[in-house]
Each structure stands twice: as C-alpha cells, then as structure tokens.
C-alpha cells in the first residue's frame, strides 16, 4: 500500500502549511494574493538560480567529480542568497503596495499590517519551496518500490517529508523576522536570517545521515519560531496569559479561587471589551 506512504508524507510535509492556510489565509482575499505573489517571487529566484546552475554545469567538465561537488555547493549558496535577495525585493514591493492600499482605503489606513504581510509572504515562500522539494519525492512514493536497493535508508520518504515541513515553517518564520528587520532597519537581523538559511541548506549536505541534518534543522526551527514570535509582538507575558486563561487549568483555577490569575484574565477580557 504505497498510497499510505504517499498520504502520510503529504500530510507531514504540507499539513502545517495547509492548516495555516485554511485558518489564517483562505478567508481573506488580500492575504491569498500576497501568498501567491510570495510563492511567485520564490519561483522567480529558483528560475534564476537554476539558470545559473544549468550554465555552470554545462560549461564545466562533467567528469571532474570534485569540481561538480564544488559547483553543487556553489549552487546551493547562490540559490540561498538569491532567495533572500528576492525576499527583500518582495518586501520593497509590499511596502509600496501597502502605501497604495492605504491611499485607496476609506480611512487612509492599510487593511493589513506589516507583520501580517511578513507572515503571509513567508508562508508563500515556504509553501512553494516545500512543493518543489517534495513533489518529485511524493510522486515516487506512490511506488511500487521504496528506496533502499542500493543500500540507502528506507526512511528516506518520511525524513524528506519532515525536512520539507521544517523548511516550510522556517521560511515562514524567516519571512516574519526578515521583514521586521527591514522595517526596523536592523541589518544584522537580515544577515542572521541569510546565515541561518545557508546553515540549514548546508545541513542537507550531511544526508543521508539524517541524524546529522534533521535535529539541527528542527532546533533552528524552534529558535526561529521563538524569534518570530517575539519580533511580531509576542511576549512571555501574553503567552502565559493565553496559556493560563485558555488551558484546562482555567476552570479548575476559577473554582479554586486563585484570584490573582483570574483577575489577570478578567483584566484582559475587560481590556478587550
């Protein structure tokens, strides 16, 4: 039943992206447009870097193994740099668009914040890059065979899916942090994003020793998630608030009469209303 592998891998690789799209993007047309445009920008960067790569490979001697290896590393670095350049270009474009949107809206205010744009654009990048790294593998996962006759790991499909999921989410977080850096003119932030992107891409050269590439990628992903959370206005305080107020503990706390926390939540609720 290779179909099971196909759906399993598809859910792993694109499940988070699907959930994000369904709950946060799909209902707002403007976000859908930004998402698709973001995906398109990522595609453009891919097109350009593949062109360069193609020329390089055609021009070089295919017999020279170390040269080809070097070219591959160069291609990876170049592609990453190009992706970040296109992210910046997209940021500039969105800023301009934002002004236009603000100008035509009734209250001279843009209907979407820069943080939201950053998140949507990042997700667009992530979905497209995820699709490109996964779809070939997905189509092969339909079988009838599985990887391994040449001695490769039989966990190839599932690890690829997890790596794709990590890349999709990483692109989202990078998008948020990157736009924030641009907004606040903190260039080291941009440099850090590019460096981390390079690092994650470089990790994939460790494959097929997945224990060398997957865990670090996930560590970076968690760190980036935290960074993105804080850079887009989250704080420990809001986190604990939401956790305390919305968790199942809440009801227990409510009736156990632990007033300070209850108070806090009510405070938030009041603030809201």
């Amino acid at each position, binding site marked *: *039943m*290779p179909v*099971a*592998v196909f759906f*399993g891998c*598809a859910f*792993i690789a694109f499940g*988070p992206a699907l*959930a*994000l799209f*369904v*709950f*946060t993007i799909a209902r707002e047309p403007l976000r859908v447009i930004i998402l698709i445009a973001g995906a398109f920008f990522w595609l453009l960067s*891919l097109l350009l*870097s*593949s*062109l360069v*790569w193609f020329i390089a*490979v055609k021009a070089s001697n295919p017999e020279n193994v170390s040269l*080809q290896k070097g070219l*591959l590393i160069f*291609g990876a670095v170049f*592609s990453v740099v190009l992706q970040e350049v296109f992210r910046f270009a997209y940021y500039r474009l969105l800023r301009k668009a934002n002004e236009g949107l603000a100008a035509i809206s009734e*209250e001279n*205010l843009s209907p979407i*914040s820069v*943080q*939201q744009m950053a998140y949507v654009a990042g997700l667009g990048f992530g979905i497209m890059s995820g699709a*490109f*790294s996964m*779809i*070939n593998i997905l*189509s*092969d996962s339909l*079988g*009838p*065979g*599985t*990887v*391994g*006759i040449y001695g*490769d790991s*039989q966990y*190839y*499909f*599932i690890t690829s*899916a997890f790596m*794709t*999921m990590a*890349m999709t989410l990483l692109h989202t977080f990078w998008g948020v942090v990157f736009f924030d850096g641009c907004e606040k003119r903190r260039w080291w932030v941009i440099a850090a994003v590019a460096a981390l992107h390079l690092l994650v*891409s470089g990790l*994939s050269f460790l*494959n*097929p020793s997945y224990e060398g590439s997957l865990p670090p990628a996930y560590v970076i992903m968690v760190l980036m998630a935290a960074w993105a959370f804080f850079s887009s*206005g*989250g*704080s420990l305080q*809001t*986190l604990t608030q*939401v956790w305390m107020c919305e968790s199942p503990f809440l009801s227990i706390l409510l009736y156990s009469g632990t007033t300070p926390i209850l108070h806090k939540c009510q405070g938030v609720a009041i603030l809201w209303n």
Partner: protein
Amino acid sequence: KLQLLSLNIMDGQPSLLLTCLHICPLPGVGCSSVQQKIYVQLNKTFPCVRLLNATHQIGCQSSVSGDTGVLHVLETETDLDWVLSSGPNPPYVVLMVAEHFNRSTMMKLKGSARVAGVAVVISKAGPAQGFSPHHSCPNQNSGVYSDSYGPELAGCNVTVWNPLGNSLSYEDFRFPIFSLHEGEEADVIRKCFLDHNRGVNGSDPAYPLCAMQLASHMYAVKDTATCMRRNDIQSRFSISPEFVCDALADYNVWSSLKPLNNSGKGHLDGESVVIAATRLDSRSFFWNEAPGGESAVGGFVTLLAAAQALRAVVEDHPPSQNILFTFFQGETFDYIGSSRMVYDMENGKFVIDLDNIHSLVEIGQVALHRNGQLWLHSDPVSRRNSSVRSELISNMKSTALNLSLSVAEPDVSQPLPPSSFQRFLRARPIPGVVLTDHMSAFSNRYYESLYDDAEYLNVSYPSGLSPEEQLEYVTDTAKTLAEVATLVARSLYKQAGGLDDHLSSINADPKIVTQMLYGFLVQSNNSWFRSLVSPDIVKNLVSAILFPASGPQPPQYYVGVPTSGDPVKMPTWLVQYVLANFTGTLRNLTQTQCKNPEDLEGESKDLYSYFWVQGPVPPNSTQGEGYCVRAPVRLVKAHSPAFELHQYSSRDYSTWTESRWKQIQARIFLVASRDLEMLTLGVGVAVLLVSLVVTYFINSKADLLFSSSRETTSTAY
C-alpha cells in the same frame, strides 16, 4: 494533476537539481532522480507476448502498469511450495533457471493466484533431456492431412514428430513471463534476493523485501477476429486510432535458375519448374528470441549452398527445366509463406502457376544427421502411380552413392513431416520429397526453442580465434552440410534434366557454408555479410545489435510483424542478398544506374533484380568499393491469404496475429513493510491534526498573543 506537475519538474533538469539543494538525498556528487535510487531497470530481457489465431489467444499478459510481486528464486521443490502455499508475502514473482521451466512447474504456477510473474534465466546449453515448448504435432491443422485427405494419417496418428513438445508456447498465461540471459543482470537479481528475502535461521524474511515488476500489457484479446474487428472500428471511428494487433507477415525469397518474367503472372506455357523449398523462420517461447539453428538455418544454408554450387554448371550446361528456389517465411505459424505462394499461384498472381510445377524438393531439418544418414519423406496418399516421384527418389539415392551420405525412405505408411510441401499437396498432388535427418520423430531435441542454436549444431570454434578467423574456420558441421548441399544441388540438376556428365563438377564449398553458418548463427554483423549487402542494410546490421557489449549476436528468426521502420526482417534481407550474390552476375553499372537500369540495353527489371552491394572493405580502408549485382531474386509477400480475404476465422489459412503493446519493462526494487507504511500514514495524520488544532487555537488567540502588535494593528485599522 500531481503527476503532471511532477513530470514537468522532471523534464526541467536544472530545477530538479536545485530542488535537491535543500534535501540532498544521497551522498556523492549531484542529486539524481529519486527513481534511479529506487529501481534497478533490467534491460536485457525478452518478454513473452500475446499471439492470437482464429480460436485462441496464447502467450502472456500483465496489468497496464505491470505486475509486482516479492521475488523468490525457485531452486527446489520446497521453493515451489513456498510460492504456491506457505510463503507469507504473496504475490510472488518467481525467478527460475531454465531447468525448472517445464510444463508441470509452469502449469502449477499458472493455476495459482499467488504468482504475479515469472522470470526465466536462460543458460547457455539446454537441458540434456531436451526441451521443446512447441506442439508435439506442429501445424497439424493447417497441413494436408485431414478427415478428407488421409484421415488415418491426420493429427500425428502414425508418427508424433516432436515427442518432446510440451505445448508451453501455446498456453495462455495471465501473468507476465520474461527471459533473461545468465550474466550480470541475473546476478544482480539473485543478490537482491539473497540479501533481502531470506529469513535468518529459517524465520520468515523481514521487510524491506526485494520485489520485481514485470510489465507487458497486451492490447489484443480473445482471437484474431476480435482484434481485427477492433482495429477496423478504431481506424473508422477514432481520431487517433489505437490498433490492437497485426498479422504475422514478412516476405518469401525466391529465385530461379533461368530468369522468369516478373511482369507476367499466371501460367507459363511450356515451362516446367522444379521447386527447391525450405523455411526461413522459427520461434521460441519468448518474443523475438528464435535462434532456429536446426529448424531453419541448417535447411536454408544448405539450399543457399546448393544454389551456389549449381552456378558452376548452369552457365555452360543449363538443365532443360528451370529450378525455382524458394525460402518461405512464417512457416512456423501454420505455413504463412507457402500458403500465400500457393494461393498466389492458384489465383494467377505469381510468375508461374501450379501446373508449371514439375516436382518439388524440400529441405527440412538436415543439420543433425547421424553418420550421413538422410531420409526422404513423401506423401503416401498422392504417391500412388507417380513416376516422377520415384524418379526423384532414385535420382537422390544414386547421387548419394558418390558422396559419403546415404539416403533412405522411411516406412511406406508414414505421412509427411510438417513441411511447406503439404500446402502444395493441399492444392494439387504434386510429386515431391522432403529431405530430413530424421526417419520418424525429429532428431532436434530443442525444436522451436531457445536452445536450437549454434552450440547445439556444433558450430563452435577453437578458443582464441578472432572474429575474422572464426568466419573462415571450417567447422565439421559446415563440412557435412556442404555434403548435403552437394547432394541437393546434384539431385536438383538431375531432376531438372541435366546430364550426368556434369554432376561431378557440382560441389558445394564448405568454406562458404561455414561463413554462412557463422553469419546466420553466430554473428550477423561480420565482414563477409557486410560485403554482400547494400550500405543501408549494413547500417541496419550494426544498429540491430541491441547489446553490443554482450558478444556476437545472430539474427533472430521469429517472423514478427512488419513495421514502418523495419518493413523486411533482417534474415530475409540477408538471405536475399546472399542468394543474389550466389546466383547473380556482376554488372558494370554505377550506383544510380544500378538503382534504375530500365533504360540501359541488355538490362531488364522484369527479368532481374538489381542490387547495389557494398563490396569487401580493403584492410586499410573504411569503405568498400560498391558494385552492382544482377540476379533473378525476388521478395514476395508472406502475408496469410486469410487477411486478404478478411476471413479471420479461417480454417484453411493461417490467422496468427501479434498483439500490440505500449511498454515492455522489467525492474527490481525493495518494497516497504506494511508496518512502516502505516506508521508513515499515522504520523502524517497526527501531524495534520495537531497542526489544525494548534493553528486554530493560535489564530483564535492571535490578538491576545501578539498584544504589542495589536496596538500597531489597531492603529493601522
């Protein structure tokens, strides 16, 4: 949609490579397609394909994308039990060596639903006890003997010609069967089996298991009438017609001692012709694997050598009657070639008609005679009071006296062996004999099988000879066949009214016979053949070699179907050109004149064919000096009259068709365990559900979570 997208990506190699940059699946340089890491393609395989006749379908069928099963190597009886009942991971694809490829095993596999396919590893030499997948009574329904003609002789009642025949080639298998030769690929498969499919200490083997997929999906079904009807419907109603089958057909080769006017058809007054016939084709269980050594090559090489031997005499002392050499194609499949020629003769579409035939000598299987003992078979029904026939036999016997051969007749009551002559007898009681090396049952233990090859005919060479030296080396088989050819040539000369005085100067050349045996049985792409054929065919000779690395390759003698790229089969071309060089004369013409000699004086396209021949290549040159050969050698269609007459259920004519197919493919790979697959699915579903819940939760609390941004957002609103 997904498939399409991924295909597009696959086509764009650069994007594919860059895709890999994030997830480089494999060590080493570059990232190759995932497919290459999953599958090992087996290229040197030959499938069994589906053939159809008026009533049946035979051969093999797979599902559209191919049948997959866990690989199991059949070595002992317990392996068979494993496949048929005890193995825990059905269905199985069985890999067997040729010894196990017999009727009882195959019928057991055929009856089991646990078999997804069979791969047969062909060894060099056949089983010692003999093997023939053909009928034990070949072509019994299309020969002359029937309820109305010698009913006591019909259906091999008197003699079973091919007692080893197990009719495996005429079974209908619902699973694919492929053959591959002993060598690298067979070893790769065996290694995969040993590495993955054998349990430790007798326990059941653990996943991942090695599996094999065989794809040979056949379009045609049921019988020829059905598939021809579907062809017809397709061609009439479909915008992009998809034909399902084609009639087996090719060309007969014929030539005459004295040229016959090809533009005039029908009866020739005053012409009396002795026909010397033989067959050109063979088959085996597998498609286009038909070495046909004893069953075809021995016979037609003998006749070619006889035609060559006659040349020395006929120019100065032509016999009073003409001799017509014919080489019939498709005889294995209910006499396609001979039935067509007889049909053409009956309907005035051939240069002569049946009344012009004086007598007929057919060369059957002659290469395996013991101590020079040959047999003359004739028809017991029509032979009553035929003086021509007894003259023919006495001619042969007396000729043999001067050679180291002896010719005898079998018991009187015996019918003719399967032979083209039977098709002539169906039309007219023509006097004639069939020359063979067997008295009753065939000497050939590998009739219409893969093992009827050079080795079986003892066409082998001392080790260390270069291809050129092998070409010139005169084998014992060549010597004895040359003797037979001399016998045939002298008998024909005598039969055609030639004088006894000249008989001694008719001698077949063992050197030419050995060259022919080398070319037709060992390596068709050799310097001698290249020098005899046209430059175009030289190209085909080179390109027809599928696996140049795996040694010399003889042509295959399966009649097949005509294709636009390959309108005439290679053996037919070769025989035509060899015959033209043997019987023709050199003309001093240029290449363009040779193509169109109509306007030149003394040349006639009606009487002769003109062949531009490449010529021998001098030692330090790449191009031979071409020359023009004029010879009365022609090709005529060997296409069963049943298709001309649209009688697809005909009982009189061959109705064999070959199904079409889209792809033939064999590959091995690993299959993952059910547990791992389900684990992957489970993890996937879990990831999806968790993401949905978490995203819903975060999204609903987004304003709370990102409170500091809320202010900016709210100001933005």
